């Protein structure tokens, strides 16, 4: 049963060539084939946001994305945010604000927040709540998450628009 498909995908700045089962999701491929377990598999049905990654700069749910459809794309996961040992401002804000309890949703929250700020959708707490609505936190760290996104947005210049 080998109808695997060759896929070339740039993950966190590195070109990866892999053969994938056409049914494999991007979540599973990142975690099980590429060892990038930062991306979490939560509901596997597009409802929780834990698997959020950036594909060509836009936030998408990797559980709703077949790995084959990422052929030729640029994927950024939570592992790709820091540079030179320095945390991304969003990661730092989450740490400083205690914006998590169990931490399972955090990589998805962080990736979604990075995109939310880049989209210009972090100009007020209300706007942040609306545009972070695709990421659920079972521990209900929402006030701290909103505060973290606002803080990072201010730092990144995404709050002034």
């Amino acid at each position, binding site marked *: 049963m080998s109808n695997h498909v060759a896929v070339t995908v740039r993950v966190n700045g590195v070109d990866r060539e892999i053969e994938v089962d056409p049914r494999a*999701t991007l979540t599973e491929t990142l975690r099980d084939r590429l060892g990038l377990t930062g991306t979490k598999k939560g509901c596997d049905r597009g409802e929780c946001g834990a698997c959020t990654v950036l594909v060509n700069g836009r936030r998408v*749910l990797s559980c*709703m994305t*077949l790995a084959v459809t990422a052929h030729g794309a640029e994927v950024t996961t939570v592992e790709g945010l820091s540079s030179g040992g320095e945390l991304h401002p969003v990661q730092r804000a989450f740490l400083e604000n205690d914006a998590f309890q169990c931490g399972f949703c955090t990589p998805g929250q962080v990736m979604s927040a990075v*995109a939310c700020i880049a989209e210009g959708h972090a100009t007020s707490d209300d706007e942040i709540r*609306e545009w972070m*609505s695709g990421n659920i936190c079972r521990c209900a760290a929402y006030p701290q998450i909103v505060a973290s996104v606002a803080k990072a947005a201010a730092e990144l210049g995404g709050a002034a628009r």
Partner: protein
Amino acid sequence: MNTAVSTMEFLRPATLAEALETKAAHPEAVPLAGGTDLMVELNFDRRRPPALLDLTRITELAEWSEVDGHIRIGATVPYARIITELGSRLPGLAMAARTVGSPQIRNRGTLGGNLGSASPAGDGHPPLLAGHATVELASVRGSRRVPVDAFFLGPKRSVVEPDELVVAVRVPPATGPQQFAKVGPRNAMVIAVCAFALALHPENGTVGTGIGSAGPTPLRARDAEEFLAAELDWAGGRPLPEGVAERFGELVAAAARPIDDVRGTAAYRGHALAVLARRTLTWAWRDHTGRGSCG
């Protein structure tokens, strides 16, 4: 799960012509656009299609344009782009698009996928009904256009033939106020309990409606449309006469054919639709009279 013994063929056409040939040769292949419906079925093994037809590489389907005075939206244009690029000309559709899933889902989900799935709960359908949209279908046999109110046949069933693909939707730009409202447990990530779209067409004094999640298919409320069109003071812009919004709501609720299910009861859906119809009419008429004749 994904380790099932059967295999699935993955077809990746690069052009629309190639996609149509592929669909003709593999009528059992399931088209894949944003994947936001289909992936749930695959991940939970509710469906094992022998083949997927990936439409995401076809640039012709991923663009919108203006054709014969209509906005022609390619089947794989995601909701996020409908909101940012077409919000002023197709406000009702953009409002509905804003309620789809979450930001992540809206970056991927498409109107073509909504139509292809033909769920009675698809958020895109009510504004297409209210806005008198036309669905463009194509196959190797040629293409055809189907008014959206003749597109749906039943729950998840449409007029699309096995060798056909939904390639675009044509919607006339708004000539008057449009509104959309839906009921659900929260603002994000819900399948609508019921939804309602309203479009006023002052240029010819007609009204468009669309009901979602309250029948075997998305529906128009034709009696409500005719009633309201005759009652509105299109030219003078006088306030809504006493009782008109209430009667409009009743007629909209009467047009629905809801069932009891996990999301709500039929009785609640009828009640909520009447409320949504009154509310959207009040907003739309205020909008219309507030700016005089619309353009």
